């Protein structure tokens, strides 16, 4: 066991004894994820891969049936559940009763319009409480429309459930859907809009959010040693100075991995979270922890006191957590937020999980893992350099 490992082992023992790492690293995220699931689980559950669509084919021709077949294929693949209805009233009643999230309305004349090269609309009516599902429904229809000249989409939300007008976003969805080009493949569209189920979403969100607080215990320990006078004794020992920094980073890494591992297992077995293939989850977890260690190491390198580092770290953790979508989904559109979110490790962690939690193989997480490792390399190098300069000054 080298000096760095010995120092890290000592620090781990101290953290276990004062229980602070347990509270912030395991207890708090577990409880919050559970509470969030209870409070928001229903809402966000509807935006998961549990897509329930209806179809009303009033045209009932070869052309309309081709679209119906595409939906049927997706139903067969388990991507969505499709129910046919005879008319719009029946389908809207199904939305009101919560049986489906959205339905496609193909009105008479589609075949003739397509043959004549005229424009035609497939209407998508969605539940106002299931905006993401409605957007996915629109995307699927758009893909179909991209291959069939002249077909347009119009999207509306069912406002019966709210006794009010449809939200303004519904018009935007329709415009957005109509404006999109034909460059997407059908499978790509469904992958892009894949979401974590509610339980997994909050479990992962809280895990990665609190991860940044947990790893702080390691790197901030360097400032605590400096404050308490023990750093002088460590630096006077016959070990390399960088061993002390390595030890703190190592402790942060251990705490992060332990925290995430316990949370992943606990939320899987106790709350039914579906994280995805173990190898992909492990890669994401390790890369996520490394990125958290590098960011908090950078924070420790610029702070003057442990208290200052704790406060600054908390502010950064909250900002990155919210921007990264650990509390609420962000960045589903093309707005600025959707771009900014990818400046956070949280967003990449969540996206990586979303890629693999639905049954994709572990390799689907590699882009997110790569992004997280890039965060780690760049920010970690800066933090390491500053910390090294600090203890050798």
């Amino acid at each position, binding site marked *: 066991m080298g000096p760095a490992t*010995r120092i890290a082992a000592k620090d781990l023992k101290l953290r276990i004894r004062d229980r602070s790492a347990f509270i912030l690293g395991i207890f708090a995220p577990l409880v919050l994820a559970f509470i969030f699931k209870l409070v928001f689980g229903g809402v966000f559950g509807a935006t998961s891969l549990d897509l329930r669509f209806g179809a009303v084919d009033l045209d009932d021709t070869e052309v309309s049936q081709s679209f119906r077949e595409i939906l049927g294929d997706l139903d067969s693949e388990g991507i969505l559940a499709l129910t046919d209805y005879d008319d719009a009233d029946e389908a809207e009643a199904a939305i009101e009763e919560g049986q489906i999230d959205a339905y496609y309305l193909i009105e008479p004349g589609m075949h003739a319009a397509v043959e004549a090269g005229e424009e035609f609309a497939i209407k998508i009516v969605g539940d106002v409480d299931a905006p993401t599902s409605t957007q996915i429904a629109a995307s699927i229809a758009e893909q179909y429309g991209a291959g069939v000249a002249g077909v347009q989409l119009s999207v509306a939300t069912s406002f019966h459930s709210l006794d009010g007008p449809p939200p303004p976003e519904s018009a935007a969805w329709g415009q957005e859907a109509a404006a999109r080009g034909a460059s997407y493949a059908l499978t790509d569209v469904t992958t892009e809009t894949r979401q974590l189920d509610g339980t997994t979403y909050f479990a992962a969100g809280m895990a990665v959010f609190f991860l940044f607080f947990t790893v702080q215990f390691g790197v901030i320990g360097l400032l605590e040693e400096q404050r308490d*006078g*023990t750093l*002088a*004794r460590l*630096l006077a*020992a*016959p*070990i390399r100075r960088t061993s002390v920094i390595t030890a703190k980073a190592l402790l942060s890494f251990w705490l992060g991995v332990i925290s995430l591992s316990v949370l992943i297992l606990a939320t899987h077995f106790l709350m039914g979270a579906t994280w995805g293939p173990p190898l992909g989850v492990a890669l994401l977890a390790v890369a996520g922890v490394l990125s958290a260690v590098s960011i908090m190491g950078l924070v420790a390198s610029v702070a003057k006191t442990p208290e200052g580092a704790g406060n600054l770290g908390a502010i950064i953790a909250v900002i990155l957590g919210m921007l990264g979508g650990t509390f609420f989904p962000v960045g589903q559109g093309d707005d600025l937020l959707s771009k900014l979110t990818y400046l956070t490790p949280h967003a990449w962690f969540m996206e990586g999980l979303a890629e693999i939690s639905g049954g994709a193989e572990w390799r689907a997480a590699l882009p997110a893992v790569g992004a997280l490792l890039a965060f780690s390399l760049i920010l970690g190098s800066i933090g390491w350099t500053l910390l090294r300069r600090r203890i050798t000054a």
Partner: protein
Amino acid sequence: MVKNFGDITAVGGVGFTIEEGETFGLLGPNGAGKTTSISIVAGLLEPDAGEVVVAGISISPASVAGKAAIGLVPQDLAIYPDLTATENLSFFGRLYGMRGEELSKRVAEVLEVIGLIDRKDDLTKEFSGGMKRRLNIGIGLLHRPKLLILDEPTVGVDPQSRNSILESVESLSAEGMAVLYTTHYMEEAERLCDRVAIIDEGTFKAEGTRRELVSIVGGRDRITITATGDLSRAVQAAREIPGVFEASHSDQGLEVLADEASRLLPELLRRLAAAGAVITGVEVVEPNLEAVFLHVTGKALRD
């Protein structure tokens, strides 16, 4: 050694040697440059100029081997409150390469030396200030260093613990360990140190044994005798005693300057009485480092 922090010269060119079994004291007020000096010696700071060699090995912040020859007892309590005394000692012992039975035996020895063997399994946060100070010292001497550096180890310690710490330092020196001791307590420097350097504003103002330093200010003992009777005859009688440098009288009694007051005192009192003086009180004041410090720095030592 020279060390500057920006425009401030913390250590402005000091140098000294310490032999095995010798205790060398750095005596000076707070901010005099004591801690900066020992930080350079311990390899915590890189000097802007100069070199430190301990047991033949050059010391710098990057040197690993040389640091093994040094034990540091920082002024701050450099112990972990949530570890037991044994755990604290074992942790630092391992950093110095000690393992297994050697480590266990040495930890037990040190706990015995510092008087904490009965509290070895208690968390140190439950210790008194004096016990923590003793453990702080114990960690420094655990690996049997060639040079033990103690930076004001008795600051904030109760008299009983202070005495225990001073006894420990005396015994370490007697065992052959070189000790570098910083303090701003005059009596500690006088009791412990074979040689003392008076440091102020980053430079040595004087250096030597206690007697050498005292000689700077004339090094004579002052005997104040409260007496009545024929004091003029008494002064004359005192001046006739070999070893008496000067004698004078006032209404209250006599003032006598001598080289070795303790040796002369019986003869002096006998002769004064024979000359007609009625003696009611005697006080002997030996010249101390306080006077030397005042002389070489122009100011008094203070906390």
